[in-house]
């Protein structure tokens, strides 16, 4: 009996070590990379002991020496702000549009409900390449290219299906009687949504927002094609560490570390919600 227990505990410990090894080690390695100079990074065998430098972070945040123009924010800080505006704005807009739509889909008894919902989801799996060139053409013609509004609109392709789909499940989870009670109490559909349904689904909304935010934040292609120098997001900023002949690994690692901070804050703060949101309300 005891040996069985011992073996089982050992197996668990081993599984945890493997888990950490596989999922955490790369992060640690990237972090170490961000503290090395290029020579330490490329040296082989790999260096675990080295004299750390904050140069990469300094350069990431302040920009390379001599490139900062007076009165201008450092490039990478601008990328971060751009991403905050774009992803934050995209998520807010998606929630604003998506919640009423999700509610109508969940409770409106609309005909073809499932098909409409599926159509929304199907935009999630449209290959970006399919829409990106026509979108660029339209954007440049109507002046949305390289604007925050344009970027926020384009990110609806990422955020809106997610929000609608997740919120729909959460709304369906609210007991129908509560809603009936509100209707009999004389509340309009809007008041019911605002005063009754939304507060109950608060955690669902939070998780939908975080997930949409992470997906939006990590997106590359829209930023590559539809953003210009004024709205360039942080993913493109990280890629600036790639020159034509070499990748400045230290800079890239530092930039990636810095860019993960907002998501990390949001995720830590609302981690319970993230789990629930990912199941799209399937947890009862």
């Amino acid at each position: 009996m005891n040996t069985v227990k011992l073996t089982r505990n050992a197996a668990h410990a081993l599984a945890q070590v493997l888990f950490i090894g596989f999922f955490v080690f790369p992060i640690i390695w990237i972090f170490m990379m961000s503290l090395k100079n290029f020579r330490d990074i490329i040296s082989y065998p790999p260096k675990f002991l080295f004299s750390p430098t904050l140069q990469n972070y300094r350069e990431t945040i302040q920009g390379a020496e001599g490139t900062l123009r007076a009165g201008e924010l450092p490039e990478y800080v601008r990328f971060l702000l751009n991403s905050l505006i774009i992803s934050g704005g995209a998520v807010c807009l998606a929630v604003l549009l998506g919640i009423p739509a999700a509610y109508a889909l969940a409770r409106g008894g609309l005909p073809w409900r499932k098909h409409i919902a599926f159509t929304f989801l199907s935009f999630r799996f449209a290959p970006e390449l399919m829409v990106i060139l026509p979108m660029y053409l339209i954007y440049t013609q109507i002046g949305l290219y390289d604007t925050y509004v344009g970027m926020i609109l384009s990110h609806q392709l990422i955020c809106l299906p997610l929000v609608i789909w997740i919120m729909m499940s959460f709304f369906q989870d609210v007991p129908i009687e509560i809603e009936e009670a509100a209707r009999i109490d004389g509340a309009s559909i809007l008041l019911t949504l605002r005063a009754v349904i939304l507060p109950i689904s608060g955690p669902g909304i939070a998780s939908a927002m975080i997930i949409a935010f992470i997906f939006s934040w990590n997106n590359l292609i829209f930023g590559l094609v539809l953003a210009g120098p004024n709205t360039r997001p942080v993913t493109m900023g990280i890629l600036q560490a790639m020159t034509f002949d070499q990748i400045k690994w230290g800079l890239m690692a530092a930039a990636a570390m810095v860019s993960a901070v907002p998501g990390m804050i949001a995720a830590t703060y609302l981690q319970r919600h993230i789990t629930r949101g990912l199941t799209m309300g399937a947890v009862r």
Partner: protein
Amino acid sequence: MSSISLSGVSKFWGDTVGVKDLSLDIKDKEFLVLLGPSGCGKTTTMRMVAGLEKPSTGTIRIGERDVTDLDPRERDVAMVFQNYSLYPQMTVAQNIGFPLRARGVKRNEQQERIHSAAKLVELSDYLGRKPAALSGGQRQRVALARAIVRSPAAFLMDEPLSNLDARLRISMRGLIKRLHREVGTSTIYVTHDQLEAMTLADRVVVMRNGEVEQIGTPKEIYNDPRTAFVAGFVGSPSCNLLDGKIVNGVFSNEGISLAAHLKPDRAKATLGIRPEAISLADGAEAELHGTVFAIEMTGDATLVTVSVGDQQLIAKLDADCTLEPAHTVSLKTGRRRYFFDGETGLAI
């Protein structure tokens, strides 16, 4: 406050019949109970009155208004749900006040009415709490207060007591009765518990398979069941129903022979006898003969199950009765006995 009338109301879902051609008038200030087993259409009927279901045919009026196509919020009715349906994120006061908020009642008037409604249901001390911090009985009282706070045209109550334990149910029953007396609003009350129906109702509507079996005061329903179903459903322990036939004014079957005065002949007939109407008999008085099958003591009486031929009946006898299983007994019935057509179930 006003009357409610349903005429020719039906509800179908595809081939499934919920309610069939129902016509019903609820008088102003009346307490009407819809009684029946689950699936009989009573809840559907009430939901149609509330506006939560749209009738397939027929019209519904509240007062003078035809409300058939109106939204629930335009009907001015209040409803109490079986599972309370409180708003979990709001305090008791906010819950009670929500109907007022929905109607745009002024803030200070809201407060006043919330307090008086809370007082009626004895919740004044709990106004700041969230529903999760309340007991079942307290939650149900919040739901009641939320219903009465805005003086609606009618109350609708959907099995409001069924989630409570037996003792709480009795005290809540008293509260509901008292509230109705004080507020005097027309009330439709749905239940499958005949005792609740008998104690609360001005009139009872017994329903079965989407149709009305009988409408009447509790007394009428108990004393003069219109059908075998009503007789069987109302009363506790429930009315004995024995099969047999009527020939020449005599109802008979194996072990049974009793006079059915003036009743026409029937090849198949059902006899209804309430357990409390049965007593031990000897000699010529005896109308039923059988053997004791089981005995249950209830304290104030003894319930004796007797096999009569291949049927069984329950007799409610004195507490000091000394019968034992397998004894043969002879029984007589009082005057409270009913004859029903064996085919249609209608009283003869």
